[in-house]
């Protein structure tokens, strides 16, 4: 299983901050988003917005990065702290 994390408003759209997906073979981030979009088009398009970044196992990656079982992929919308 790969662990998906949805932060900020993406968590509201995904119905929870965390979701596990079983990946029989490595998927690019894009391919994974396509799978999620098939089940929820609103979530799918939110994950593709320009300002959303992707972190694979704690490192920022682009959509070509490959995700496999055991990985943690986080979807990071625009931040705001302080």
């Amino acid at each position, binding site marked *: 299983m790969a662990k998906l994390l949805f932060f*900020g408003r993406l968590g509201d759209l995904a119905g929870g*901050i965390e979701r596990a997906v079983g990946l029989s073979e490595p998927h690019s981030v894009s391919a994974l988003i396509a799978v999620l979009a098939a089940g929820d088009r609103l979530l799918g398009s939110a994950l593709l917005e320009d300002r959303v970044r992707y972190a694979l196992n704690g490192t920022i990656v682009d959509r070509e990065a490959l995700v496999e079982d055991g990985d943690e992929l986080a979807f990071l*919308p625009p*931040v*705001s*702290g*302080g």
Partner: protein
Amino acid sequence: MLGRVAIASTPFDPEAEIAAFRKALDDSGAIVTFTGQVRPSRGDGSVTTLSLQHYPGMTERGIESMLDDAAQRWSLEAALVIHRVGDLRPHEPIVLVATASRHRRAAFEAADFLMDYLKSRALLWKSETGPNGKLWIEPRDEDYADAARWDRQPPGGR
């Protein structure tokens, strides 16, 4: 430089933290602190809860690398960042930044720099829940502009 980053999931006492920070100093003559706290409700009497979310591990590492950046830009003896996460009520402290240096300019600028980072670049997500529901907050244009000031002065420039 002595740097410390803490993400607090329960309320913290800014002045106790500042006192401990100051007592540990050796050679500094200048200490600057910034405390951010939840502002009260918007005049309509409604109570708003502020919620902050972080990405455990990655958020701390990001802030730590920003402390390293500050240490390259200014001569600091110590710097501290404490940031609350979870649900906060009006007047609760959200963030504390403290910096210490021999002279005041470095401490002022470094605290300003760290706050700009925390406001618009640290991996933190803030929402407000009030009578009209939940709203995710994004940095103001001013916050992005403030953070961009430092990009024009990369580390080592002074």
